[in-house]
């Protein structure tokens, strides 16, 4: 199957074959195209090409309603709940059982909801409203929703990202029983232990393309990792070695209940430090806390030894921190205004004369950055919406570079960017480091982490579980720390060869 969004080709040749009565794992780096594939199956997106057979006959769902009707249940990566409605209604929305006089049969719904929750072994009051549920509870309700459909195909896109161990076990029990009822399940996860624990077969995707399918019984983590990563790591991520200066940012046991616990680390001038880990590990939260978007309960953040007032992005910007957020369409760009406005957005203070900014002056101030980043926008005052993801990313970076920061925090620098632009962004980052900028990079893409970072901090469930120097950072060590397993479980002796194979 093929699918592209504008310039981003999310799926080149997505291929997945799911047998009834089996649990099929779908793995791949962030942006590999897993969710896109899922969304096509669910009827959220229409595929650009390729074939899609369900129970033997060709199908092409134009709406999620159709796929539901056909017996496909999907748990989306991001919870989709109606905060104002009750938990039960959320589970049954769109297909509520009708009782006497076409009125919906609440008793029956609550009944079934209760039983599903019992089955999942959670205690959620089905009558309460969905507003204010914890992310984990929301995830549970997503699962309940899918189960209640009793569909013949159940797709779960990273259902465990936010779940605790016990809950995961329960979910797996249910999944197995469903399999034994002869249903087909697709399970997407970044956690190998889960894949090996639950699944029968595993399909690996990379850059929107099908890489291979293995029987779980007959494969190993390193094998899968090499399938996932399998590309010339080193020249794709050209980090020039810059001489490391003295400490710029230092974070001392930062603590925010429910999200992360006693986080401490330094970032030095000219150094690129990567926060690696699984989706939902808490890296974005850490970054947001450092930048002051989110408040934290205890701990302190200092830049060049000067403490930064918590909970105030303005203070952070003044102090010289730049923050390129995870979802730039949402947070980084002021979509409706022009590139120039966006880039100048945060430096008005500098280029303003008496509080006023002449457009000419603005453009002058902005051009060098834009050209330096090779932002491919023919006119600077073209609307930001109209650019490809890659160019948008560059604009956001330019926007912050224009403030002449000491520290650049960049979350998922290349998410949603086509491979070509990816390496440009990487070159830019190492260049900046070369000029003595301190960079804190959050990335879920292992190769990126390994290629770019001078040091890797691995975050697992809100804790820093490992600090690896460039030399000792390998797919296995990082994965191990990220999944909470230990490297020797992932046969270290193989590791060397594995990487050789990869880089050969």
């Amino acid at each position, binding site marked *: 199957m093929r699918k592209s969004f504008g310039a981003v080709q999310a799926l080149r040749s997505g291929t997945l074959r799911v047998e009834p009565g089996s649990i099929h794992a779908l793995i791949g780096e962030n942006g590999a195209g897993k969710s896109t594939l899922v969304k096509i199956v669910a*009827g*959220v997106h229409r595929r650009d090409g390729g074939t899609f057979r369900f129970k033997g006959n060709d199908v092409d769902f134009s*709406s*999620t*309603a*159709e796929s*539901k009707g056909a017996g496909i249940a999907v748990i*989306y990566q991001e919870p*989709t*709940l*109606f*905060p*104002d*409605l*009750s938990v039960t*209604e959320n589970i049954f*929305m*769109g297909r*509520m059982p*009708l009782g006497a006089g*076409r*009125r*919906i049969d609440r008793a029956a719904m609550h009944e079934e909801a209760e039983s599903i929750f019992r089955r999942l072994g959670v*205690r959620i*009051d089905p*009558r*309460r*409203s969905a*507003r*204010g549920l*914890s992310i*984990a509870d929301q995830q549970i309700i997503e699962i309940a929703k899918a189960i209640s459909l009793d569909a013949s195909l159940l797709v779960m896109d990273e259902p465990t990202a936010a779940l605790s161990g016990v809950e995961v076990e329960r979910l797996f029990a249910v999944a197995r029983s469903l399999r034994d009822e002869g249903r087909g399940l697709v399970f997407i996860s970044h956690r190998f232990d889960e894949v090996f624990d639950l699944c029968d077969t595993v399909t690996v995707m990379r850059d929107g393309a099908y890489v291979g399918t293995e029987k779980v019984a007959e494969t190993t983590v390193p094998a899968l990792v090499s399938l996932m990563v399998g590309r010339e790591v080193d020249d794709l991520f050209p980090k020039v070695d810059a001489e490391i200066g003295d400490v710029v940012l230092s974070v001392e046991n930062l603590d925010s*209940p*429910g999200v992360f616990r006693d986080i401490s680390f330094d970032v030095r001038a000219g150094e690129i430090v990567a926060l690696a880990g699984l989706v939902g590990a808490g890296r974005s939260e850490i970054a947001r806390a450092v930048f002051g978007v989110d408040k934290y309960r205890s701990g302190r953040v200092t830049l060049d030894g000067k403490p930064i007032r918590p909970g105030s992005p303005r203070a952070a910007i003044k102090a010289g921190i730049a923050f390129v957020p995870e979802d730039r369409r949402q947070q980084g760009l002021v979509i409706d205004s022009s590139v120039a406005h966006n880039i100048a957005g945060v430096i008005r203070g500098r280029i303003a004369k008496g509080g006023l900014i002449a457009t000419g002056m603005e453009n002058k101030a902005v051009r060098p950055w834009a050209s330096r980043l090779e932002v491919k926008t023919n006119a600077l005052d073209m609307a930001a919406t109209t650019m490809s993801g890659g160019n948008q990313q560059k604009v956001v970076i330019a926007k912050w570079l224009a403030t002449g920061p000491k520290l650049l925090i960049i979350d998922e620098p290349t998410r949603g960017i086509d491979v070509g632009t990816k390496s440009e962004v990487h070159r830019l980052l190492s260049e900046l480091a070369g000029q003595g900028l301190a960079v804190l990079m959050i990335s879920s893409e292992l190769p990126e982490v390994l290629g770019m970072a001078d040091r890797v901090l691995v975050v697992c469930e809100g804790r820093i579980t490992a600090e690896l120097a460039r030399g000792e950072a390998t797919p296995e060590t990082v994965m191990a720390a990220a999944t909470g397993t230990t490297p020797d479980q992932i046969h270290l002796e193989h590791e060397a060869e594995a990487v050789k194979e990869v880089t050969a």
Partner: protein
Amino acid sequence: MNTALDTPPAPTRRRPDVGHILGGLVRSREIAVLVVLLLLIAVATFKSDGFLTGDRWRDLLLTPSILMLLAAGQTMVIITRNVDLSVGSTLGLCAYATGEIMSAGHSPWLAALGGVALGAGLGAINGLIIAVARVPALVITLGTMLVYRGILLRWAGSDRVNAGELDPGFLDLGTKQILTIPVLTILSLLVVIAVGYYLRTARGGRELYAIGSDPDAAALFGLPIRRRVLGAFIASGALAGLAGVFWAARYGGVSSNAGQGIELQAVAAAVIGGVAIFGGSGSVWGAAIGAFLLVTINRVLPILGVSDFYQQAVVGALIIGAIVLDRVLSSRAERRLAVDREATS
């Protein structure tokens, strides 16, 4: 907006049902407004002994019947994150149409039917523009408000429908009572109950809430968003049409400015009744009680010696108060929930 209503306080989690219902009752916006309303009436009765006797009682119940219909319709629309400013003009147009049909010698039934049908049609126009072209309802219905009024002005010109031209039986309807309860009031109560029942117990009704609560999620669910929104506007229009019929009966005449400005009252009623202006929550009961309160206040204030001139100000203060209160309550509720999560995690 008012999670406070739907969310049981943490402790009652063990006995959800009772706890929920109790918590609901105590916190319920509907109850709160109702209490205010009854207090008002009580005070008024105390101050002027004739307040609840004979036709005074009748009018107390009769006058709100029209606004109640509009508030019900407005609620359906607001729940879907839209708003309908055109109901005032729709009312006027439908009231005039009803009158004209009758004065053309047709039966009151036909006339009433015509009025409601016309209303539904006008509502459909709003709905189609908004749902299909996906444009903000606020501006579009502001536009149709002017257009519909303009059409009415053109049609009625300097003419007006007088009591004489209307069917006597129809006019009686405006004052007839059953066990001292005016017929119009009974009718609009029935309508409100019907709408409320639909919103509460029908799939379509719940989907309206879902759409207003999170449009993107609604789309992921494959809910028929356009159809539902269109439906809501048609309903609102039809109810405005019915209100127009009531208007003709109640006031025994229709002029080209009938219903002017009542749309804002309808919105106010819904808001006071606890309907969240950004959709997803609120009940039609609340809106109806809000409408009752709005009308009754203007009735009671003079008795309490509050100057005629202050009445608008009081209504305004009421709206602001209601909203700000909501805000305070809900933010408090959120804090409580955060704490809960800590505890459980």
